[in-house]
């Protein structure tokens, strides 16, 4: 394996692995905090149990996310020293702030996980809120740094050097807001659907279990809201991409020709050799409208750019199609869920809908991965769009296939263990009978814990 390919594969694999853990670390605190707040308000111990058990799963995932994130901060330099030499100061502001956000997240997660009996109830809930805020902020800062690679700003290029650095301009680059919005919504959406799907599966095993009903009642609204908001956010991001990365947009859409009234393509397999995208259903003018708000607007096709600045068109187009398809499906599932809960409580007894939720559980994560492919592969051959090619940023270190294989194997083993442990935790969730026992002596137990607070 060629060194550049090995380095790219290792980076892609590390990010694809980390992103799952990162989104869980961002979104799970919201679910835990809601459950805990409901417990504090209603006194219903099932909510407390829910928050505690969700916290256990989150603890495993957060730990793996923390260390795989550490690996990434090193890998930036281990694999792309030239990139970091140029970009380090420019992405410095978001990364410095991310350091602090991650710090706060780790601190308050420690308090949240191990402090149930050590701090007061309010303080504990507040710790959860801090994890939520700092976790989301941390994600936003990282994506901000990535947005700079897509829309580099805040410097002057003089003799190949990035000088006159304006850190705030670099941070608030043209892509940061839309990319961050898209990613944050994606995090809450994917995690909420995953959680709803898991508890739906458990509800299919034991109908009427209040533990799983309440879990779905918390997760599904978040999932539905996110799924409905995401297409709007995605549209804004597409418009920003059209402006800042027209090549990427052309690849996403399989658009080879520059044309007015460009069509939106559904399906289709771009062929770089013949410079066309056959097998597509074309909606006339729709791409022009989505990208520029005008059915007759001109969309620049791939041919308008030098051949050696094209990303791998087929990969980008297919990944984009997968992401959009999954997004539309989740939107439909969300709308249905809202509709069903409106009309009585049929949601928990309609087995077909529970099955749909189970089926939908992995889709958010898959969409996140597909979207990440669009972002990263769509920027190729550049690591800093228009300024530094990926091939020129790689380390001179030989035999990079070795660390690639080592980390791949490592992450594979970790994935298997994490899935196995989560599976065990899920299957240990309380049965209806255990829940009754939990609720019965509730007043007594509650008084006891109240007095020790």
């Amino acid at each position, binding site marked *: 394996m060629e060194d550049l390919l090995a380095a790219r594969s290792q980076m892609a694999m590390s990010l694809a692995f980390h992103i799952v853990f990162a989104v869980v670390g961002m979104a799970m605190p919201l679910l835990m905090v809601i459950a805990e707040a409901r417990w504090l308000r209603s006194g219903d111990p099932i909510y407390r149990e829910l928050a505690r058990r969700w916290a*256990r*799963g989150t*603890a*495993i995932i957060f*730990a*793996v996310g*923390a*260390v*795989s*994130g*550490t*690996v990434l*901060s*090193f890998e*930036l*330099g*281990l694999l792309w*020293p*030239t990139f*970091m*030499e*140029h970009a*380090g*100061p420019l992405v*410095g*502001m978001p*990364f*410095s702030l*991310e*350091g*602090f956000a991650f*710090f*706060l997240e*780790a*601190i*308050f997660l*420690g*308090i949240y*996980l*191990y*402090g149930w009996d*050590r701090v007061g109830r309010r303080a504990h809930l507040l710790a959860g809120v801090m994890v939520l805020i700092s976790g989301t902020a941390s994600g936003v800062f990282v994506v901000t740094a990535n947005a700079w690679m897509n829309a580099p700003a805040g410097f002057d290029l003089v003799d190949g050097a990035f*000088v006159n*650095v*304006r*850190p705030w301009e670099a941070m608030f680059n043209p892509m940061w807001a839309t990319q961050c919005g898209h990613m944050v919504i994606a995090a809450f959406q994917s995690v909420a659907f995953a959680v709803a799907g898991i508890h739906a599966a458990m509800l299919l095993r034991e109908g009427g279990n209040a533990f799983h009903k309440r879990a779905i009642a918390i997760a599904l609204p978040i999932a539905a809201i996110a799924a409905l908001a995401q297409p709007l956010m995605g549209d804004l991001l597409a418009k920003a991409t059209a402006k800042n990365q027209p090549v990427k947009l052309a690849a996403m859409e399989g658009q080879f020709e520059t044309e007015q009234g460009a069509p939106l393509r559904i399906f289709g397999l771009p062929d770089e050799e013949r410079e066309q995208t056959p097998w597509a259903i074309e909606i006339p003018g729709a791409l022009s409208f989505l990208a520029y708000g005008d059915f007759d607007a001109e969309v620049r096709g791939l041919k308008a750019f030098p051949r050696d600045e094209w990303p791998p068109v087929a990969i980008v187009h297919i990944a984009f199609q997968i992401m959009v398809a999954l997004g539309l499906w989740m939107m439909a599932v969300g709308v249905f869920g809202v509709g069903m809960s409106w009309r009585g409580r049929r949601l928990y007894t309609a087995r077909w809908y529970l099955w749909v939720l189970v089926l939908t559980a992995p889709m958010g994560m898959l969409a996140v991965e597909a979207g990440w492919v669009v972002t990263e592969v769509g920027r190729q051959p550049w690591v800093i769009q228009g300024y530094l090619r990926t091939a020129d940023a790689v*380390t*001179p*270190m*030989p035999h990079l296939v070795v*660390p690639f294989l*080592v*980390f791949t194997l*490592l992450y594979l083993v*970790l994935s298997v*263990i994490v899935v*196995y*442990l989560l599976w*065990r*935790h899920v299957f240990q969730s309380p049965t209806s009978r255990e829940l009754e026992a939990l609720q019965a002596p509730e007043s007594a137990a509650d008084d006891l814990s109240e007095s020790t607070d």
Partner: protein
Amino acid sequence: MPELAMIIAAIIVLALIVYLLTGGADFGGGIWYLFATGERKEAQRRALTQAIAPIWEANHVWLILVIVLLFVCFPSVFAAMMTALHIPLVIMLVGIVLRGSAFAFQSYSAGAQGLERSSARVFAIASVSSPLLLGVCVGAIATGEIRVLENGVVDTNFVSEWLSPFPFAIGALTLVLCAFLAAVYMTVEAPGEALKEDFRRRALWSALATGVCAFVAGLLAIRDAPLIWEGLTGAGWSLLFQLITGLAALLAIGALWTRRYRLARVAAGAQVALIMMGWALAQFPYLIYPDFRILESAAEPAVLRPVLIALAAGSVLLVPSFLYLYAIFKPREAPELAGDEERVNEP
């Protein structure tokens, strides 16, 4: 404004010291987990796990902060280090990943006993490899072997810079320092006299090992790291500094000997911090000897100034939160209670 780079370099050293005092002690906890022996083996391990669990993730972030400050403020230094030390850093990272994941797996095993046991073992072994390699990298930076060519490319064969006796002596020193700190902390935190005695013995032995490693590293430095050797022996400040560090070490040992554990903890922390500071001063003004000096390799002031502002603003949130975390999980009352009992029990 050249002072900015100096301030940030000082903050990096400070963050490294805090990392060693907190995250380093967590590594040490893993080391003693591996070497838990005697009839109280399981009790030792339980106490170590309890001491680490709530805080290790927060402690670990100091390392990330160091890395981020390095690549933001000294990007060429970061690039050179990551290029020349690729191999030991990758091995260290594998250890860090295994260690953190395995610790979480054994804490939340949901009753999977086989997995719990093997995770604990992996956690313990990786707790040895990670600080060792971190020390190797620090040692390699001081040897003067990592050079850059005229065109700015790092001149390295990826191996000889770190695969030599001096870096490994520093790796061993790092390892015993971590073990020393953890054992001293545990004399305060472990429940019960018997466990405290176990860790007291371990602390005293690792204090001795620290002395041996430091001596060996010093001898090797004469040949392999002349900059450090001269800094630690030749400069005007160095003798006084050595004296203070030595006094802190003696105080730590004396306090351990007489079972004044809280005093021992302060003295041991001071000793380790002084060793780190001595190292930093000896290496001053180089980040990598001899091609990267602090001032010449810093990013523009336009980059450094906002980073300092971010650091100041972030600290306002971070420092109280960090102290709050420690106040919750390392309360003053409980150990003092234990200390009182101790005095009562003494004849």
